């Protein structure tokens, strides 16, 4: 332990603690902008300055490790004035149209300026050159808001291993972005939106599509249907000041009805559908490999996460056959709403307007993919992020916290607990195993409370093995087989796992990949800023939602059974292939 003094009081802290962390533990709040817990500490913004006795200059506390007998001052005139000047200089370059900024009241620069008591702009400098990048379906970048903190660079490079963003040029002309200031659609950006999720200001956000949804809601000729992903219900409350991890499924449903959506459906329904299709695809491939001796692509990779799909298309095109051909639950819902549900209403696909609420920016891109029009028109018309839905609810003047609970609509509003956990890393795997194991053996998966504990939690790459015993006669070829599965979240971890598989160092049957840290609950479209603590709170809420349901297995969902009986036939049927499966394409890495 190291003995230090902060503002005259003695403390004892662990070695290698930064001054910033030591102060935080001591209950002292030091303002930060570029620093992000567990993601980045580079001392770039200079907002976290403190004074250390015996050191001539003020130091950036986020990169200064504590040392024995260090005497730290966090709150004297010199420190306060210096921080103020640093923030004032940032403001002198910043396009400060706060009232109409996407990040108004959700901006770290704004709140630090407030906390530091800045009430006048003493420096009037030149503004950064305006570059507006609207080249992608998912993301919008505005250079006049950027404070060059580099959080986005760090997540894009280190967490996602995509490296679409990097500081370009130098000094006042520095611009954070793709090579030579090009636009995002010219590089291998997968539109995961983790850059937007960590941006402290309004420099990177999702493309705002709320106006398109309002227009559809106002159009008397459109039947406007909404679906919400499982991750929304554990995070939307945060937009209204509720604690992270508060489940708001019922309030959210009521709010959507108040906004006059014609039907409120649950992406959980189509997540259950995904399990039926993907589980059958896995078992079929295993049968081909083990019984028919055919060469098939194993392991199968899950295909729910559109950032991951683009990542494979760019970086591992030789492994496209390993991706499950199943569309994501969002796209399955779109296709089912515009065919199955439209037929029930006696409507044409073009009369339907499908809105998705997703924790994700890449879903905006996914919905716009040319293949995603199995109904004859674009299956999902508009994708809103959790944040956009939060804004629409506010715009509608709905007092969210005061809303009563209500249930989603039949028939596509019913989902199992297995579908809820699609929101968490490891959840798709657990849901698939709950169903596959039971199909093969006729018995429930042998894990306490149905949770496949080895694939639960925040570890980057998780593995599990299940030996299949006591198979039903038709699955006897799997008797004694040890099923090997792996789960990765973040594309950096996915890359490491794929490299291991390609090198032959690891062999699996089934691999789940989610693009964002923690899975969809940590998605690029979720309320900002998502820390590990918040991820864990949302994950816990999702597991609670699952455990609170009587229906916890996808294959037991009565609406799924009915959809197969009335419309789809059976998993992997011709109609399933047309509506629920897709193709992938090699993309040139630029």
């Amino acid at each position, binding site marked *: 332990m190291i003995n230090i003094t902060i503002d005259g009081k003695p403390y004892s802290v662990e070695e290698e603690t930064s001054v910033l962390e030591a102060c935080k533990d001591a209950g002292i709040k030091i303002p930060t902008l570029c620093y992000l817990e567990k993601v980045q500490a580079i001392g770039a913004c200079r907002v976290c300055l403190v004074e250390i006795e015996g050191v001539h200059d003020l130091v950036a506390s986020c990169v200064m490790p504590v040392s024995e007998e260090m005497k730290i001052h966090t709150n004297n005139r010199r420190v306060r004035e210096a921080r103020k000047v640093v923030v004032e200089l940032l403001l002198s370059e910043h396009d400060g149209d706060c009232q109409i900024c996407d990040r108004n009241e959700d901006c770290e620069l704004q709140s630090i300026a407030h906390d530091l008591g800045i009430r006048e702009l003493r420096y009037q400098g030149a503004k950064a050159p305006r570059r507006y990048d609207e080249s992608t379906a998912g993301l919008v970048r505005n250079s006049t808001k950027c404070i060059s903190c580099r959080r986005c660079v760090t997540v894009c490079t280190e967490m996602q291993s995509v490296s679409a963003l990097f*500081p370009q040029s*130098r000094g006042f002309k520095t611009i954070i972005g793709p090579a030579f200031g090009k636009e995002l659609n010219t*590089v291998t950006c997968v539109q995961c939106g983790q850059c937007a999720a960590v941006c402290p200001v309004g420099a990177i956000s999702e493309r705002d599509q709320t106006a398109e949804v309002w227009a559809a809601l106002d159009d008397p000729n459109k039947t406007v249907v909404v679906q919400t992903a499982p991750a929304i219900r554990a995070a939307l409350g945060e937009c209204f000041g509720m604690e992270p991890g508060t489940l708001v499924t019922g309030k959210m449903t009521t709010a959507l009805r108040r906004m006059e959506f014609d039907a409120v459906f649950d992406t959980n329904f189509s997540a259950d559908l995904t399990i039926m299709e993907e589980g059958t695809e896995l078992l079929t491939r295993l049968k081909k490999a083990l019984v028919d001796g055919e060469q098939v692509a194993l392991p199968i990779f899950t295909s729910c996460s559109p950032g991951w799909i683009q990542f494979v298309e760019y970086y591992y095109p030789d492994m496209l056959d390993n991706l499950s051909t199943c569309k994501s639950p969002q796209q399955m819902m779109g296709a089912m709403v515009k065919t199955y549900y439209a037929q029930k209403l006696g409507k044409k696909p073009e009369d339907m307007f499908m809105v998705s609420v997703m924790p994700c920016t890449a879903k905006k891109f996914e919905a716009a993919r040319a293949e995603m029009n199995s109904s004859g028109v674009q299956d999902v018309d508009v994708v809103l992020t959790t944040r956009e839905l939060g804004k629409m609810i506010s715009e509608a003047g709905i007092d969210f916290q005061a809303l009563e609970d209500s249930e989603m609509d039949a028939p596509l509003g019913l989902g199992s607990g297995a579908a809820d956990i699609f929101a968490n890393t490891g959840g798709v795997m657990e849901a698939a195993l709950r169903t596959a194991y039971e199909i093969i053996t006729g018995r429930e998966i042998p894990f306490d409370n149905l949770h496949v504990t080895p694939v639960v939690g925040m570890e980057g790459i998780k593995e599990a093995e299940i030996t299949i015993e006591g198979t039903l006669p038709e699955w006897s070829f799997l008797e004694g087989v040890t099923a090997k599965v792996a789960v990765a979240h973040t594309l950096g971890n996915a890359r490491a796992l794929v490299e291991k598989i390609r090198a032959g160092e690891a062999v699996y049957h089934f691999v789940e990949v989610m693009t964002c840290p923690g899975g969809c609950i940590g998605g690029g479209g979720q309320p900002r800023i998502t820390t590990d603590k918040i991820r864990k709170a949302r994950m816990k809420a999702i597991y609670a939602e699952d455990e609170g349901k009587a229906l916890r297995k996808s294959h037991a969902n009565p609406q799924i059974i009915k959809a197969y009986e009335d419309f789809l036939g059976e998993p992997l049927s011709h109609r399933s292939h047309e509506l629920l499966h897709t193709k992938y394409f090699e993309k040139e890495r630029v």
Partner: protein
Amino acid sequence: MIDDAISISCTCEETYDSNTQFIKLDEILAEYKYKDGGLIPVLQIAQGLFGYLPDEVLRHIAKNMDKPYSEVAGVVSFYSFFSTQPRGKYVIKVCLGTACYVRGGKQVLDAIKKELAVDVGETTTDKLFSLEVARCFGACGLAPAIMINDDVHQRVKPTRIKQILSSYYKFEEEGLDHA
């Protein structure tokens, strides 16, 4: 090797003999690929080879050094030494370090701009001259100084610019390579 790279002067034409140059580049890449801090020397040598850093070359370097293209571009755009545009046969660098600035470097620069009708970073339409600004050649005693390729011209006055440049035009007319 790094020193060699710096002293290789630009001999570029707008097109380059890609085969030979890429073979040479690959040899350099093999040498630097696993060296920490290898990117900058590779870029220097590549610019010496090709005369400038074409996009194709930068992508080749990024791929072979297993570095993100955005990072390679970030380094190239950070240093004014690197150019992604073809440059003239003669690169004029006007020193604006403290000593040269005080002794009239800025006026020298203005005179060259006027004489060649180009701005800093641009190349004359006949592709003969590119104009750049430099920060101190370490020749402060000769201030104000300019460099044209590897030639250092000392105590330059705005009135001498025409005369200095004319010697390059003359060599060009006679089909000779200037030193």
